[in-house]
């Protein structure tokens, strides 16, 4: 039975995962006994609608590099973090998965896109393992990893995919063996917009800036006016970031100077940090749901799958769910084990490609900061 180990390190998370693809013939769904192997619970029985046999997650470990509040993670420090942790994580994953070296069929790693230095340290780790263990390498597109893992976990067969993270904002639909990008952010990614806003307000990066913004937003009430930049199926966030940063500074000054609090024109309520978080979330998520809806109308799809770190956001999932329901469809989302960068998705997408005969020779086992989702030939789909 095919087994792969996957290494992910395109941003500030180092992930190592081990996956098993049960043979196609299995009539009975595999028992979720594997959940005991990992503190990251293996996926359970949410996949009733699955057409192909579900995958088995033998291990899914992650270690995150968090920079102090007010700062972003720098490539050099992040790469050092990954180097420091990769051996420990691989050892622990192998132990948890209870697999022997000979069980492993291939070593999958993130080829890109992402930050150069962290990608590089993980690619070196993968090459080293490949030579030590004498196993073939499979370079994986990070975005395709998210999409394939999302499909496997949720059972969404042919969804429109919204991929939203710190580095990517894309609306994707499958057509003719490619994941085609129908719309995307023209400047910065939505997660980057949230992260940078968090820095201005000194919102902690632990566990994730977006998560902390979401918690604050739950207490926000006043919706202020931000630019709303949707152009066809594309979006832009830099103008929004500039405006909301300006608001954050205005809030800070109003709190420290004697001019009294900044009040909402309509309600007379004093504006809070929570209101800014609320405003930002409501605006950017409305934009994302809107372009997703356009893509769904365009290709005639009713399913939508949300992947990527920002995809964990409950408000985004809720809005997406309402939109999909209005269109007679449904939304599929995964929890933080899978939507936040992880090794298992790299192992999964890599193993699918490996089963199709794909290998990455050592001399081609490079990494690249730029790697479009639609460059990958998806020859495992019709």
């Amino acid at each position: 039975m095919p087994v792969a180990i996957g290494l992910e390190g395109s941003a500030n998370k180092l992930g190592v995962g081990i996956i098993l693809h049960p043979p196609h013939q299995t009539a009975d769904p595999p028992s979720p006994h594997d959940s005991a192997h990992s503190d990251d619970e293996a996926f359970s029985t949410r996949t009733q609608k699955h057409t192909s046999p579900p995958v088995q997650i033998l291990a899914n470990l992650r270690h995150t590099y968090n920079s102090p509040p007010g700062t972003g993670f720098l490539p050099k420090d992040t790469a050092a973090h990954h180097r420091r942790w990769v051996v420990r994580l691989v050892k622990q994953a192998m132990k948890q998965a209870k697999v022997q070296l000979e069980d492993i069929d291939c070593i999958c790693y993130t080829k890109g896109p992402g930050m150069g230095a962290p990608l590089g340290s993980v690619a070196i780790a993968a090459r080293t393992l490949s030579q030590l263990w004498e196993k073939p390498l499979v370079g994986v597109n990070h975005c395709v990893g998210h999409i394939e893992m999302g499909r496997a976990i949720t059972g969404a067969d042919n969804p429109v995919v919204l991929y939203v993270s710190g580095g990517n904002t894309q609306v994707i639909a499958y057509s003719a063996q490619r994941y085609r990008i129908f719309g995307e952010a023209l400047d910065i990614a939505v997660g980057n917009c949230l992260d940078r806003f968090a820095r201005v307000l000194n919102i902690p990066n632990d566990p994730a800036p977006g998560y902390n913004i979401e918690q604050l937003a739950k207490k926000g009430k006043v919706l202020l006016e931000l630019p709303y930049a949707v152009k066809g199926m594309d979006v832009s966030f830099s103008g929004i970031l500039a405006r909301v940063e300006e608001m954050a500074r205005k809030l800070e000054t109003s709190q420290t100077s004697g001019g009294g609090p900044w009040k909402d024109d309509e309600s007379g309520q004093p504006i809070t940090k929570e209101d800014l978080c609320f405003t930002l979330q409501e605006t950017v998520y409305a934009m994302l749901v809107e372009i997703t809806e356009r893509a769904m109308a365009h290709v005639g799809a009713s399913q939508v799958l949300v992947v990527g770190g920002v995809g964990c956001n409950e408000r985004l999932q809720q809005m997406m769910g309402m939109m999909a329901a209005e269109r007679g469809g449904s939304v599929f989302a995964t929890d933080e084990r899978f939507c936040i960068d992880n090794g298992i998705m790299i192992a999964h997408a890599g193993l699918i490609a490996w089963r199709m005969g794909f290998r990455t020779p050592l001399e081609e086992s490079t990494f690249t900061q730029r790697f479009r989702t639609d460059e990958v030939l998806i020859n495992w789909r019709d």
Partner: protein
Amino acid sequence: MAQPPPQQPLRTLPPPFNTSAESFELIAQGAESLLYRTTFLSPAQPAALKVRPQKTWRHPTLDKRLTRQRVLAEARVLVKLSGEGIVAGGGGRKVKDPKKKNDGGGDNGGVGALRGLVPAVLALDWERGWLVTEWIDGVTVKLGIYQRDLAADEGVLRGLLGRIGRVVGLLHLAGVVHGDLTTSNMMLRPTRTPGTNADAMARAEEERGEVEVEGGLEGDIVLIDFGLATQSVSDEDRAVDLYVLERAFGSTHPKEEGQFDEVLKAYGESMGKPGKVVLRRLEDVRMRGRKKSMLG
């Protein structure tokens, strides 16, 4: 005429249409609007009702703001264009006149030739999210090309492509980019109202021998669905507008794709000097489109 029953229950229509006894034929359902064929000022006058339903997933304040902005933006562009060439001092009301009329326009049938080639606004309610425009008769250009007589002279098709290019040129010259140019958003209106500018233009074409009066591709090109239109005279926006059309045309009409140059040629002629700049810019946009496949 047999009309299918409305596929949307009438209660989803905004007032006053929710209590109307008239028929509403759902023509198209996009991501954010529903298009109905109904009547308006008289039972004999068909009209297009475009409704932007509330998006419950969006914050109500934001939803109201966007609906209002979009209904108004579309109506303003259409009213501005319907005033082309007759409005004293340039463009329509409440819109900035982008450039003086001596924009160097070329062989375009004169200022105001576009008027009558976009639907007229009859009414709107930006609070309730609806817009009524005149109904444009005919088939979409897309359908026209699909159903065209393949045995006919290719000149008929070239004539059509030329008229498309000319209309887009006129639109750009009027300071508007459409934002969603496709062959589904262009109607082939069979009859011309005598005495209108469009009529004069077409007759002039015939005199110049540019149009064969055969083949089912006859008629005025009327641009519809200005839901994504913006007022702009930037070369970049104009070039992107053409690029969107080029890609949409290629994917919708692969057999005719090779003749798309006719559109660009006529565009350049109708735009005159500024057109050349836009067409050069289009090359950049195309390059970027291809290079984009290498960005992360």
